[in-house]
């Protein structure tokens, strides 16, 4: 590969334009760093791809148990376990579940009992494609880490829209957000300097749009009156 790269670079440097035929061959690198056997029917492939915290994505190539023939590729549940360490569950959070489902649909990956997997043909002709698809799915679903945020212990002073659109609010978080919105409205009303119409109207629009859904959801869950 090194010789190929030097040759390719020399040709690129001497050319008036970049030759796509040469560029295509530069990227022929394996995505598998290491392989080891778990048992006689399962091998573990350490890929070059990484979860957000720096560990490498493993995919496992397994033989079906007789009488079924063929293979499957699986993450052995490691991706959803990764999220579980962050208290993120695609089965308990509708938002996270929807995102994970979209990723799986896009990449033709299945999920069952916490395991991401895809079948592979008996001749293994599609194994490379399956490894890339499953690895992508593992990384993208693990990226839910960036979507779900732990609630901060201090009061939110800003970024309300971020909280409302990205978080799954529990009762405590809902009250905190509502208090911040109400404090902001009070402040605007008491200022001698007339605030921008858009800002106040934007906040009122936010309340009108978000409050009914938030209150109904939390009230139903916590047994509170819908008219609190």
């Amino acid at each position, binding site marked *: 590969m090194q010789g190929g790269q030097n040759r390719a670079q020399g040709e690129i440097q001497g050319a008036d334009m970049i030759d796509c035929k040469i560029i295509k061959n530069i990227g022929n690198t394996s995505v598998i760093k290491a392989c080891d056997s*778990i048992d006689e029917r399962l091998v573990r492939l350490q890929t070059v791809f990484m979860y957000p*915290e*720096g560990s490498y994505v493993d995919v496992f190539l397994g033989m079906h148990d007789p009488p079924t023939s063929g293979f499957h590729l699986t993450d052995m549940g490691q991706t959803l376990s990764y999220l579980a360490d962050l208290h993120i569950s695609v089965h308990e959070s509708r938002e996270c579940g929807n995102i994970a489902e979209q990723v799986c649909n896009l990449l033709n990956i299945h999920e069952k009992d916490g395991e991401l997997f895809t079948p592979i043909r008996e001749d293994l002709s599609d194994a490379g494609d399956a490894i890339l698809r499953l690895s992508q799915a593992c990384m993208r679903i693990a990226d839910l880490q960036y979507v779900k945020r732990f609630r901060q212990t201090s009061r939110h002073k800003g970024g309300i829209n971020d909280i409302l659109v990205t978080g799954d609010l529990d009762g405590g978080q809902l009250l905190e957000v509502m208090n911040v919105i109400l404090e902001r409205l009070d402040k605007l009303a008491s200022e001698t300097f007339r605030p921008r119409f858009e800002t106040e109207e934007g906040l009122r629009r936010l309340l009108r749009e978000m409050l009914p859904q938030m209150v109904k959801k939390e009230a139903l869950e916590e047994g509170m009156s819908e008219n609190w």
Partner: protein
Amino acid sequence: MNRNDFQALRHLDDKQVVDDIEFRGSGPNLSFGNILVHNSMGHVILLNGAYSPRTKKVTYNFVLKDVGPICRVDVNGPVHRDKGRTHKHELTDEEDPQKNLPEADARPDLEGKTPRQIWEVICREAKIGHKGRFREPT
């Protein structure tokens, strides 16, 4: 929580787990969660864990509620950078919990140990008393 707070918590010798630890579930992994680690510093620390009977992967993960993971032991799990498959993550700065603990040290001494043996090492090193039962997964 910063590094100093974490180390103070770690050195605290009154930490207790009173609940039973039992790995359960379907699929490739057995797991448990929401085990409270009582402590006199008033932190709400929750322990979760997972075990794969086929790959022998074991994880014990300590989470500071509403902040994120602060300590995690992985045995025979995914390779972490150059620290191998068996390593221990710890909080090194305040942002580490949000990043799911990117820093780790290799722990080859834990390789080949059962989930119970690993738990006993953790309890001894982290000064945690376990008053409940530990059911070894099969």
